[in-house]
């Protein structure tokens, strides 16, 4: 394990009121490569922690204002999102105090004065725990991504759409905002797979999603894979006309995509159905299902209309539900 990385990654908050002890500990830790910040008592420590998170706290027991025990308890109650490794420094070695400290949330105990090697060994043990936590958080992120991201194209998956479209729709309905969705379906996709193989088919989808992502608004619009070659683009704050224009832009961009195969350069096209809600209508009966259904109806018209085109719901007419 590369020790240096831990030392730089996890700064230590040293809480000690006795000046000589504080100075000596700070010196020892700094020489070992750690980044150290010093607080004179528990109250000062909490003040510093409110501004910057310290993953490692080395604290004395008896201090004015707020002692080590209380500091421990407060840290455990307050900081839930990231782990804070707490070591209590104490001159006492009675078992009761050790137990009290551990129950208050301390991870480890050092009796004063510690030898350098003991101090550094215990700090390193704590750093190992923090590294472990870091890798777990990273793994959790990856799992979260796995469950919401389509692994082939990198866009959101159906599960994500099913979870988030209702929220978007609810919000748009409540605050009377525009919301549109674009239902995108690749034309003759089965033939692409049959003629050129699935690997090419995969590449078509991958490159197309990349292309769509380059066209839609970052951090605003989002795209989810609805089915094999079906995608839904959710466009908040977008009225039906603008959504139709967005669909047209995407349609053109996909037309212009060059997919290289071993024998030729392939072009693909997609059809689009656009539906949406508008603040000027009574949208109280619209659900995610009816919204998608309406977009699907428009998509059907696009396919019937020759493919490689965009059909948009007419919001002027009353609901045809």
């Amino acid at each position, binding site marked *: 394990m590369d020790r240096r990385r831990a030392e730089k990654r996890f700064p230590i908050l040293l809480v000690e009121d*006795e*000046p*000589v*002890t504080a*100075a*000596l500990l700070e*010196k*020892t830790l700094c*020489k070992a490569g750690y980044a150290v910040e010093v607080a004179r008592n528990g109250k000062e420590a909490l003040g510093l922690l409110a501004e910057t998170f310290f993953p490692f706290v080395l604290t004395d027991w*008896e201090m004015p204002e707020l002692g080590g025990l209380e500091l421990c308890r407060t840290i455990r109650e307050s900081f839930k999102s990231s782990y804070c490794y707490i070591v209590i420094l104490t*001159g006492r070695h009675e078992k009761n105090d050790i137990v009290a400290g551990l129950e208050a949330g301390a991870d480890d105990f050092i009796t*004063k*004065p510690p030898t*350098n090697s003991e101090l550094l060994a215990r700090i390193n043990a704590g750093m190992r725990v923090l590294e472990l936590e870091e890798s777990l958080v990273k793994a959790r992120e990856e799992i979260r991504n796995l469950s919401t991201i389509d692994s082939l194209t990198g866009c959101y998956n159906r599960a994500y759409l099913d979870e988030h479209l209702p929220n978007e729709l609810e919000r748009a309905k409540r605050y009377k905002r525009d919301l549109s969705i674009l239902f995108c379906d690749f034309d003759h996709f089965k033939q692409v797979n049959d003629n050129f193989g699935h690997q090419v088919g995969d590449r078509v989808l991958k490159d197309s999603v990349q292309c769509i992502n380059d066209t839609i608004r970052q951090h605003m619009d989002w795209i989810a894979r609805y089915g094999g070659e079906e995608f839904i683009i959710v466009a908040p704050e977008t009225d039906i006309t603008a959504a139709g224009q967005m669909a047209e832009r995407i349609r053109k961009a996909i037309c212009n995509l060059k997919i290289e195969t071993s024998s030729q350069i392939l072009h693909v096209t997609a059809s689009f159905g656009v539906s949406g809600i508008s603040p000027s209508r009574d949208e109280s009966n619209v659900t995610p299902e009816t919204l998608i259904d309406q977009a699907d109806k428009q998509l059907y018209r696009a396919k019937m209309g020759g493919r490689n085109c965009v059909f948009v719901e007419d919001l002027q007419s009353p609901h045809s539900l």
Partner: protein
Amino acid sequence: MDFKKIAKGLDLEEDEYMDLIRLFVETTEANLQDLERSIKAQDSEAVFKMAHKIKGAALNLELADVASLAKEIESKGRSNQLTDTSPLFGELKKTFVKISALATQ
């Protein structure tokens, strides 16, 4: 009191150690005054607290004589038996003055 040797044992350069000694002298000066006052006032709790502080600082810097004297006074404070504390304090002060002199050399 071989400062050089102690410094080496603590993995410190001699000048780094001397900086800490000077800090020790500065803070203990004030603590000794408080300790003296507490002994005169027969305040066991205060005697315990001050002696404990001095002991802690001394132990850190491996000043064994100061530490053991402070420890004795600390015990007396803890057990609320402050008789004969004054001579101990006298010893402590004497030892401290010696260190203080060495520090300012």
